[in-house]
Each structure stands twice: as C-alpha cells, then as structure tokens.
C-alpha cells in the first residue's frame, strides 16, 4: 500500500529546473532511499514534500489525501516528520526541552485551558514529559538530558534531531542525510535505530550520500539525476545498473 504518492513533481528555480516530472511511491513500512549525485534535486524534493517549497507542477498524496501546497505545520500534523541536513535544533534549550517540544502536536486540550493551567492541560503536560524521558531513553540520550543542545557533539545532535522528529509521532519520516559526517560506529548505531523505528510501524524516506549505509538499510532505492528520476528498484538492481554508475561517474568526470 502506497503511503506517499509523488506524482509529476516539477520545480523550477529561476531558470534552473530542479525537479522534472518526478513520480514514485513510498510504500507502507518500507525504508526507501533517495540517492543521486549532487544537485540531483533530492533536498528540493524533501522541501516540497514537507511544505517548505511549493511545487510548480504535480501533486503529492499522503494516504490518498492531497498535501501539495499545505503549510509546513499542516503537513506535520498530518503525520509527516522530518529532520534537516543542517543541525536544526533549539540550540539554547536543553536536550530534554528539545524532545519535549516534539510532543506539541498531540495536545488535545484547547489553548485557553493551557493558559489557565487547568488540570486537563497540566495532565497532558505531565504525560508529555514522561514520554519525552522515554524517547530520550530510546535514543540513548538520557545522560545528556540537561545539556544544552548547542554543546552537543555532532553525532549526538543528529540523534537529538531524530528524537524530536520521532516525538511528533509520524507515520512517515523524512531523513535528510542522517548519517553524513558520522564515523562508521555512529553510522551503525543510527542505522540500527532507523530499523527499530521502522519495526514500530513508521515508514522512512532517506536521502543519503553514504552508499554503504543506503545499500544495507533500504528496501528500495530511487535514483535521481539532474532533477529527473533515473531508476528505482532494490539495492542489488541499483548497484549494478549502468545508468546509475554513469550518472555518478559522469558527474565526477565533469
């Protein structure tokens, strides 16, 4: 069952065609990798899915609901979470506060009740705090919970970003280069976490440059080159596909 359907997405920046008629599906509970040489349009596609950019043509369906053109927060509330390429955290907050804020979208009590600090709202706050601690536990960040996000080393910051995104309780998770810049040890750990997340029922779409990670982690892979979809298939198929090799090598030659 296709959770996310991307149909004929085209995006033009100035004179540059960033994405050209891209279409593919992301199936429920799969880990789909999105790869391609630099400039292929991967991050642009992410930005379009999560609402940071508007597509010029095409549409995107999430659980058969059209989400093209929705605001960032609306898309988030539909159940799509994402992490960014650059470390995007609440730098001046503690690790705990960061994750805690991730549970924001689950609040059911209306705002005015929160303002009046009524029991219902207080109860929700307490429940969220508990869940935040559990999330920290899951991501192995409990020891750092009172540390400022800005003070964390790179690998931990990435883990924190993932924790925050998970806190929103997404059905689809967009990971933008989750292991780039990590050493093999950290990469292994992150990959394991991603598998665990998938086994909890979350569908994952990953953009990555680290080929080893992509090949071992992903069920299927979609290759973009110069804004267009080149080929999609299983890792084995992709690894040996001539066009893919060409795209990467061709790029390097240039």
């Amino acid at each position: 069952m296709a959770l996310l359907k991307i149909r004929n997405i085209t995006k033009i920046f100035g004179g540059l065609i960033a994405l050209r008629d891209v279409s593919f599906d992301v199936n429920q509970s799969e880990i789909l990798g999105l790869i391609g040489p630099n400039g292929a349009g991967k991050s642009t596609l992410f930005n379009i899915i999560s609402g940071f950019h508007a597509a010029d043509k095409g549409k995107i369906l999430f659980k058969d609901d059209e989400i093209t053109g929705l605001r960032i927060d609306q898309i988030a509330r539909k159940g799509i979470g994402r992490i960014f390429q650059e470390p995007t955290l609440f730098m001046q907050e503690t690790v705990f506060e960061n994750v805690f804020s991730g549970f924001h979208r689950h609040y059911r009590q209306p705002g005015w009740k929160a303002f009046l600090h009524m029991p219902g709202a207080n109860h929700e706050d307490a429940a969220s705090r508990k869940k935040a601690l559990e999330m920290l536990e899951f991501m192995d960040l409990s020891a750092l919970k009172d540390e400022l996000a800005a003070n964390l080393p790179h690998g931990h910051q990435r883990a924190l970003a993932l924790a925050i995104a998970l806190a929103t309780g997404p059905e689809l998770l967009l990971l933008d280069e989750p292991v780039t810049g990590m050493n093999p040890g950290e990469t292994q750990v992150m990959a394991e976490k991603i598998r665990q997340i998938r086994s909890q029922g979350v569908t994952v779409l990953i953009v990555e440059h680290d080929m080893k990670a992509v090949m071992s982690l992903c069920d299927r892979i979609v290759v973009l080159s110069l804004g267009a979809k080149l080929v999609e298939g299983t890792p084995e198929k992709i690894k040996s596909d001539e066009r893919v090799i060409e795209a990467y090598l061709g790029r390097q030659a240039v």
Partner: protein
Amino acid sequence: MLVNALTIGSIYILMVLGLDIILRGTKILNFAHGQLYMLGAYVLFLFFQTLHWNFALSLVLSGAVLALVGALSYLGVFAILSRRFTVSTTLSYRLLLSAMASVGLMMILQQGTLLAFGTQERGIQSPFPQVIDILDIRISVMRILIIFLSVLVCLLLYLLMYKTPFGRVLRAVSYDPEAVTLQGVNTFWIFVTCFALGSALAGLAGGIIAPLFSVTPAMGQNVIFLSFLVLLVGGIGSYRGTIAGGLLIGLLLSFGFQFLGGVAELFVFMLVILILVFRPGGILGEATE
C-alpha cells in the same frame, strides 16, 4: 506637479536603494540612514555654500564623505556586534541588537549635528536656479537634474550589481553569506562595502536635495519614516520594487499634500495596509528556507 512627484520619488529611490543594499548585504536595518542623508546635505552646505567649491565636486563629496562615515560606522559599531553572533544566534536577536545599535548611532548623529550646527535652517543657493518652460509648465532645472541623477545612479547600480563580478559577490552575500565565505571571499570587507555604498547613496540624496529644501538637523527624521515605508512596500530585496515604491510615494506625497493636507500620511498608511494584505511582496521572512 508631476515633476515634483518624480523629484521626490527620485530622492526616495536613492535613499531606499541605499537602505536596501545595506539590509540585504548585512541584514542590518540601519535606523541611522536618515542621519546619513542629513549629513550629506550638510556636507554639500559646507563645501558648496560655505567654501564655494564647485557644485559637482561638492555633490560627489557628499556621497564620498558619507561612504566613509558609513564604513566607519560599520567598523566601529556593527562589526563589533557581529563578533558576538554565532551560527545559533537567532535572526530576531541579531536583528534587534543591530537595529538598536543603529538607533543609538542615530541619536548620537542627530543630536551631535544639532549641537554642532545649531537648529537654524541653512539655505543653499541653488546652483541652477533657472526655470524652463515645457508645454506651458514651468519646471525648475534643479528638479530635472535630480531626476536625471537618480536615473543615472540607478543605471550605474544596475550595471554594478548585475554585470560585474563584484556585484555578483554582493548579491551572493545577501542570499547565503556562509557559502560565500566558503568560497574564500572575505565577507567582512563586503559588509563594509555595502555600508559604504548604501551610505553614499543616502549622502548623495541629501546633497542633491539640499538646494531645494533647507538644511536642518531634523531632515533625517522626516525622511526615514517614509523611507522605511517604501522599503516595505517595494519589497525588501527587490530593486524594481524599490523603484516602483519610490515613485509611488513621490506621487502620493505630492498629490496627497495638494488635496489632503496633513491626513496624507494616514491615507498612505491605509494604502500600505491594503497592499500588505494582498501582496506580501519580497520579505526577509524567517519561516522559509
């Protein structure tokens, strides 16, 4: 009257282009910009009226001196401020602090000039007092000169920004300062240049308008409010918008005062609100990547 509108519009165009260059390059909203305009007028007064130097030279000086003042103000104030900012400093914090620093600068320049020169208005003998008749309309040559100069400056700026490598760097900095740094360009001096250039424009605007209106320390204050308005309406980061906005303001002001008197400003504001509702225009918003 149309000429009057164009004249006023031209001045605002120069002013706001300067403001825009500074803002886009350094992300600093320079509240002292009006004072730079005022100082430009005083420079012209000093050299042309008092020392009787050549008008053209004095005008160039009003731009050049202010370029220096602008560069110094960046070096002395904003550069120091920028040292504090790290990657994680929020945009609102940067904006607030740099804006407030510029406000402090504004106050110092304003009152300093007042103390140095006194509150009396200074008049400047117009170097071109002639008036010509076109189609039964009497137009002062001075005003035509202003419009002409403004057009010239716009063209020069356009050439600078879009046709030279320097201009490319300047534009790149307004999009992504970090990327530019990575390419080996020293953004520090780019910022200084932005300030110098923007300030020069303000000084020039002040210098060229000085013969038409009197020179007082309060000039800056009068002009900054509408300059901001033009910046807003024209869209921050759109040169074409700035030009359009300047012209619009020129039109509104000259016609507005004819018909509405004091309420003109209110009217303008209402118009601005309408524009804001329907066309947000170029905004330096934070919420989009």
